[in-house]
């Protein structure tokens, strides 16, 4: 443990293209890109499922089945199977990470929309809101806390799993792990693991704050009034 900390404190490891800041940024970039792509796909599907109450079994089953494939195996398979795989290592990496990130975001989105009181949606429709207006002005804002919850859960998994990118010669914090493995450089491996864990914790906290910030004021008031009742917050995973 101490060796790992010493490794981290060594100023030499904090500079250059192989230093901690560079790897951290690479890791963040991979995570960010993954969440962006997965977010677009999963939110679109999740909001559609939630609003129409259709296709849930199919989409959730499909995304769950994809998710069940071992990430490392899928990564290597895609990398060697397709021509671009090794040259553009980022593509297979993003594919496997997006597959990983979709189910929790999807669940957060449809659970969020489904959690909106049907009476509210019915009243909105009766007032003359179009389906799009119902989705964006009513369902989406009220679903936001659960949507952010889904993103948060996806982010944690992606941050931890993005280390595999290094397996097919990409950057990120996984570099420290995979580089140290053949050399049996345990202090560096430990340091790499600690960095991943710290990054995950910091990002988790960030998402927690965002999740609180997006809770609509009126909904917060409602929860305050019903403090005695248990909050009906569902975990998105």
């Amino acid at each position, binding site marked *: 443990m101490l060796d790992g900390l010493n490794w981290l404190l060594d100023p030499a490891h904090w500079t250059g293209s192989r230093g901690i800041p560079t790897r951290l940024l690479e890791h963040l970039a991979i995570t960010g890109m993954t969440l962006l792509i997965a977010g677009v796909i999963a939110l679109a599907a999740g909001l559609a499922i939630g609003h129409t109450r259709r296709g849930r079994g199919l989409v959730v089953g499909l995304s769950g089945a994809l998710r069940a494939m071992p990430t490392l195996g899928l990564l290597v398979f895609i990398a060697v199977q397709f021509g671009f795989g090794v040259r553009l290592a980022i593509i297979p990496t993003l594919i496997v990470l997006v597959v990983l990130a979709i189910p929790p975001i999807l669940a957060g989105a449809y659970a969020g929309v489904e959690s909106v009181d049907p009476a509210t949606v019915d*009243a909105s*429709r*009766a*007032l*003359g809101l179009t389906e799009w207006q119902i989705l964006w002005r009513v369902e989406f*804002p*009220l679903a936001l806390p659960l949507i952010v919850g889904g993103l948060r859960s996806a982010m944690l998994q992606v941050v931890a799993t993005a280390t595999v990118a290094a397996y097919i010669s990409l950057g990120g914090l996984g570099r420290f792990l995979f580089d140290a493995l053949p050399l049996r450089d345990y202090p560096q491996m430990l340091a790499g693991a600690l960095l991943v864990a710290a990054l995950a914790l910091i990002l988790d906290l960030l998402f927690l704050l965002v999740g609180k910030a997006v809770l609509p004021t009126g*909904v917060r008031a*409602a929860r305050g009034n019903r403090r005695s009742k248990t909050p009906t917050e569902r975990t998105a995973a």
Partner: protein
Amino acid sequence: MIEFDGISKRFPDGTLAVDNFSLRLPSREITVFVGSSGSGKTTLLRMINRMVEPTSGRILIDDEDVASLNPVTLRRRIGYVMQNSGLLPHRTVLQNIATVPLLNRVPKAEAVARAHELMETVGLDSALAKRYPAELSGGQQQRVGVARGLAVNPNILLMDEPFGAVDPIVRRELQEELLRIQRELAKTIVFVTHDIDEAFLLGDHVTILSRGGHVAQHGSPDEILSNPASEFVADFIGADRGRRALTLRQSEGRTLVVDGTGRIAGVLGAETATGPVSVGAGGRDEHLGEITLGTEAADLPGLDTPGELGSSSEAPGVDTTSPNSGELGSENEAPEVDTTSPNSGELGSENEAPEVDTTR
């Protein structure tokens, strides 16, 4: 004018909710659909703004078939108030009221000014404008719901059991308020309820529906009460029992009105006793003591609907053998009155009652 023309509705599960329903609802008056659950009343209401599509038949608003109109456009022209207010929880009172005007591209300042105006109309303190629905009482939420329904200044206002979820005292207030608003605005209101008292209080016209959207009777409250079309209607409005089966009883020179449960509903006022008699039904749990019937009656809880006053000869009489017939004060212990008793006491027979404590 809203016209139902041979409307039927069969739901996908096979239930026939409405079967060949035809009716004309006059403009600028309140028509109440009343019936128990499964009578199709809400289904009928929701067909007017195309929240439910009929399986067959037409609905015309001012001779225009609603099926030919875009549902969104149609709904924005019609006010809608529902039971649990249906307010948007993430928007303030003001934003809720202004929702549809803003969607219709009414300038913001104008929509806000109008929303404030409407809050006043429905009796809401303007200090509540910035509150969220969850911070309001049930009654206040319903008022916001009504204000929102009126926001686009619609000719038609649909109300689906709007006061069903609030407590009786607040409901009473809201009903009075609605009548006041209606006197000012004169909208074509279609009101759905399962509460016959509410129907008689609010409705210019009342449609009593039985299962499958069949019209059991349609008419003014007076017509229905004085001449129930069938056993079903008589039973539904409770014409021959309870609070509406009123009989007169003389005691100490006063004429008491006794309801079907043997409770004193009130005292027939001297000024009204000679004229056309209007009698209110009394409270259920407590004696109201002395009631002067007439204009003041409106202030008393429960004095909402005209009761049916039985004449002395054909009145289902109060069983004179009941301990109840003696002192009124004993009623609490023995409220049993045999209304079907063959030896119907004549109203005059009560004169022997020694002491009647009308203040109890």
